[in-house]
């Protein structure tokens, strides 16, 4: 069966959990920016957790169903409607053949995940269906969905409607948002004062934030320790001899605006990275609206690993809640 795109919304892409293993070749890990919500949407409709879904940002699509299906919308509070009738988020509901799924204005968060029973069945590319628009890989012709697309859906009976994930197991950032940061290898390049300011200041999400990276502004400019730039590094003190970037790493070009690299990020370059947002908080970044006030909070490796374990336990509780 297929689902027809009547209106694609702003930027709606097919995403699964991504294609790890090729970052060293410059192909990003990709996949949903809020993976917890993506997994939850799939579980609600009876799909494997890693099935492909639609990730929609800020404004939902309009989708017409060719056959009956079970659907769930998780992540951002983007209220779904079926032929105009309001449905609950984080709850499985039925869409009948010929009906249209639409969305109200976004209320909270940034990205909603739309899972359809059977999962989206576009071809795998390097082991994943995730769309990487900059590299034109995955999804439908490597691009966001467009008007008239017939999105292929796999076979799947679908779970029964009404299954819901309790409020206590849903996650969206607070206001101000708090992102935990593990200082890294290049922390030594900035002055002590700059390091203190980074954690003291309240930053705001820049509107240009996207799947590659999320920029923050509004904090004080960083100062760097005196050093002679090494051979091969650019002349700005924020330049290094090219190095690898990790998912979550924070680069600060010119010492001005921190950018947290996300799922579709570039894999290396010549800006220093002062540390990384811990893996447990990366999903929250996918839910930040433009202008959201944000604080960075310093943690050590032990705290980062504890947070990661907590996150794994949360996934376990979501699975249990749906059994």
């Amino acid at each position, binding site marked *: 069966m297929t689902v027809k795109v009547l209106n694609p919304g*702003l*930027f709606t892409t097919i995403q699964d959990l991504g294609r790890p293993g090729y970052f060293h070749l410059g192909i990003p890990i990709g996949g949903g920016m809020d993976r917890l919500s993506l997994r939850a949407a799939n579980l609600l409709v009876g799909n494997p957790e890693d099935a492909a879904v639609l990730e929609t*940002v*800020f*404004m939902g699509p309009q989708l017409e169903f060719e056959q009956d299906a079970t659907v769930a919308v998780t992540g951002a509070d983007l209220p779904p409607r079926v032929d105009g009738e309001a449905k609950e988020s984080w709850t499985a509901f039925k869409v009948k053949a010929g009906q249209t799924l639409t969305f*109200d*204005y*976004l*209320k909270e968060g*940034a990205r909603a995940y739309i899972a359809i029973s059977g999962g989206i069945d576009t071809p795998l590319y390097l082991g994943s269906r995730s769309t990487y628009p900059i590299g034109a890989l995955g999804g439908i012709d490597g691009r966001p969905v467009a008007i008239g697309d017939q999105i292929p859906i796999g076979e799947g009976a679908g779970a029964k409607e009404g299954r819901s994930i309790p409020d206590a197991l849903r996650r969206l950032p607070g206001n101000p948002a708090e992102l935990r940061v593990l200082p890294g290898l290049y922390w030594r390049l900035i002055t002590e004062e700059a390091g203190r300011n980074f954690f003291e200041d309240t930053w705001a999400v820049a*509107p*240009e*934030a*996207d799947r590659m990276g999320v920029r923050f502004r509004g904090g004080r400019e960083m100062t760097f320790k005196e050093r002679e730039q090494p051979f091969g590094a650019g002349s700005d003190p924020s330049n290094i001899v090219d190095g690898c970037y990790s998912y979550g790493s924070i680069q600060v070009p010119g010492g001005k605006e921190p950018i947290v690299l996300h799922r579709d990020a570039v894999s290396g370059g010549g800006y220093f990275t002062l540390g990384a947002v811990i893996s447990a908080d990366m999903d929250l970044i996918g839910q930040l*609206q*433009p*202008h959201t006030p944000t604080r960075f909070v310093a943690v050590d490796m032990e705290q980062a690993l504890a947070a990661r374990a907590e996150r794994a336990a949360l996934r376990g509780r979501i699975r249990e809640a749906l059994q």
Partner: protein
Amino acid sequence: MAEVKSPIPGTFYRRPSPEEPPFKSEGDSVAVGDVVGLVEVMKSFIEVKSEVAGTIKSFTVENEQPVTAGAVVAELDD
């Protein structure tokens, strides 16, 4: 009274570019589908169009100010 709402969150602009006049000013008439402003988000500028016809009574968001999805940017008299 009718309202024009932003479809998305971002930064609101009243002009197509800094050198050009505003899309609409107070007292201007608006037809269905007329552009009254732009919202910048994810390196794109999305047009904010009126879904109703009327006359602009007032803008409720200043140029270059943040908006949320569904926020009223202008009020119209029928």
